[in-house]
């Protein structure tokens, strides 16, 4: 890690216009990263299903903070709105509707767990090695904010307007699909049971 920290300190001296000093940004980033990772790990290991959803909230919220630290403010607020506002609520509804137990459920993990652990650790080791090896001499210049809403909006509605519209159609299709799946199959199962 010493090879990593030395350039970090060197980079910290270059910019001074941020609220936090560059090294401060970095420290906050790392702290929040620890929180995000911890919440994520708790989310995938918790035996309380509802707790897992709440840990997910923490992880995603922490991620929004990370976006802010990376000066991508618009993304951060979208993350908060969409993920925290709707996705997690949806997931909670899902848990509720599938009658997830309130207390700890001993069978939250499948028998595949040891194998999953091995695979995930191997993947993590490989990827971390590669990423660290690839980007150990790369720094992000955070002196000019890069994720401001006006710039992003301009780009979105000039360059990316066509994919944007396509995406809106996709969302509509997903909406219709979700409704169709729920409704048609309900009639189906009623027939089957009747």
């Amino acid at each position: 890690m010493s090879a990593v920290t030395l350039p970090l300190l060197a980079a910290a001296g270059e910019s001074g216009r941020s609220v936090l000093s560059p090294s401060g940004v970095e420290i906050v980033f790392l702290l929040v990263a620890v929180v995000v990772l911890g919440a994520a790990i708790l989310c995938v290991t918790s035996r309380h299903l509802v707790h897992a959803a709440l840990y997910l909230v923490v992880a995603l919220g922490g991620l929004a903070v990370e976006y802010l630290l990376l000066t991508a403010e618009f993304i951060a607020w979208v993350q908060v709105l969409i993920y925290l506002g709707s996705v997690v609520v949806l997931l909670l509804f899902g848990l509720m509707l599938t009658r997830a137990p309130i207390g700890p459920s001993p069978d939250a993990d499948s028998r595949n767990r040891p194998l999953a652990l091995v695979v995930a650790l191997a993947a993590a080791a490989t990827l971390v090695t590669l990423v660290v090896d690839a980007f150990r001499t790369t720094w992000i210049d955070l002196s000019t904010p890069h994720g401001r809403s006006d710039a992003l909006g301009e780009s979105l509605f000039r360059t990316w307007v066509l994919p944007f519209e396509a995406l809106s159609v996709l969302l509509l299709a997903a909406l219709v699909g979700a409704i169709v799946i729920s409704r048609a199959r309900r009639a189906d199962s009623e027939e089957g049971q009747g």
Partner: protein
Amino acid sequence: MTTTTAAVLVPLLPFAAAALILLTGRSAPGFVRPLAVLPTLAAAALTVLVAVRQGGDAPLTAATVLTPTGDPDLPIELALHLDGFAVLVAALVAVVATAVQLYSTGYLRDDPRYPSYAALVSLFTAAMLLVVYTDDLIVLLVGWEVMGICSYFLVGHYWERPAARAAALKAFLVTKLGDVPFLIGILVLASEAGTFRISHIVNGLTSSLADFELERPTLVALLLLAGVAGKSAQFPLHTWLPGAMAGPTPASALIHAATMVAAGVYVVARLLPVFTASTAALLVLAVVAALTAVGAAVAALAQDDLKRVLAYSTIGQLGLMAGALAVGSRDAAVFHLLTHGAFKALLFLAAGVLITVAGTGSLGVMARTRDIKRRAPDAFWAMTIGLLALAAIPPFSGFFSKEAILHAAETAALDPAGAPAGVPAAGAWLVLAATLLTALLTAAYATRLWLMAFHDPVSARPEPLPQPPAVSGVTTLVLWLLAVPALLMGLGYRWLPSWLDGTSLAPTPATSAVATGAALIGGAATWAAWRRRYEMDEPPDPGLSLLGSRFHADAAAGFRLDAATTALAARPTEGAARLTRFVDRTVVDTYVRGAAALPGLLGRLVRRAQNGNAQTYLTVLVAAVVVLLVTTALASAGG
């Protein structure tokens, strides 16, 4: 109408009739009878016209190229060659065919398959006439094979009976066994002679001017002989003919007595110079002819079925014709062919009436049945005339033609210098002896047939006759029409030489006396045996006394030739088939199964992984991706 046009029309008329009957037989059954009879009748009239016009003059030849072959010098031609042999045999064929068609209108009155029968007989007639008139070997072969297939269908006319099906198949296969060498022989002959035209080949071989000889005459002659033996039912390919009696009686009369079986003899007569070019082939022909004639006559003496007696008699008479050819006398052979065609057709048609009246074809049953003579007087008289002709009693037709054969054989045996070149003296002696022996035996079985079917010395026949179906007038008319040539054709020896090669066919006193004496001895011995058996109250079959019971059984089974064929050909083939099946099932299939087992094993292993749990699949997938990733990273780092 020129003679050539008439000759062209002759095969075309029955052919067109056959096509028309096949096309309209189902929709317009009323037209079948006229369509069957009238074109054949017209063809018969035309053949007689052609024969009279030709009148033994120089051969008429007309040809047009039918199709080129690979060799521009060797085209297949639609050629006519009208010499005395051709016009006479064609007249015989057409007249017998007309008689048979007429007879069939009555005989097969109630047969539901009469249209197809009539069409096949017409087609057969057309093919036979084509064979007779054509001058091209390939066209001859076409007619030859069409006859074969018609014979197959007609023998199997009553295909509901297993015996008929088996007989049809046997006839087809045995004749094909001869036809394959025949085809090869034709091709060898044509490639050596440089032409398919029979007249060109014969002229080249006989003309003293043309310096032309076959390179392999024995090979060609023996190959052709195989086809002839198949078609003309010579030993050892004769076994199909007795079985072929399963067909309708008129078809037997036409095909298996008068015409098709004569085609082989006719072809040898046309191509005789090819055969005389090889002494060995003539010797083989003489041996085959002698064996066939004597063996068939003995077998005929032991048969119980009326039609089988006649079938064996046909084989024997064909053997005599082949014997005449073996001593180089095609005049005698064709003369006997003509008379035999007439009286054998008569015999078969009379036998058809007789079987209908008696309700059975078995001589043993007829011998115990009363009044056949009175119930079927026409058949009785026709049969009597035919049998007298067969037994060569003067002045019936068979006497003169057999006399011609005997005379030719005697000439060749006693005076080799006077015989045609290339005729072996040993063969001539063999033919002479066989002909005399056959004359004796023929008279014996003819007498036996006549006595057993019509007579009993003590009027002691127990079984009354069932009420017979009416015999139609047409049938009777045909019988008497055919009786005339059977009776009188022998006298044609005066005029026939002018049509044929010109050798005298007149009977000589010495051979006449010997042959007639042999015939009388045979007849008398049979009559004596028959009387004695009646007096000793035994089954009234003189053949049993004459042959002895064990030999009789052998002869009745055709000398067990079928059993020998089974042992020599069928059993090894079946054994080979079983061996092949065994090898295929146990050896080849083992490899196949082994080849299938390994993928099967792998498949069973792999399908265990297919446990339905998506998480397992995904885990394996991600693990594989990680492994790939590590490998790629290491490779790129190392590289």
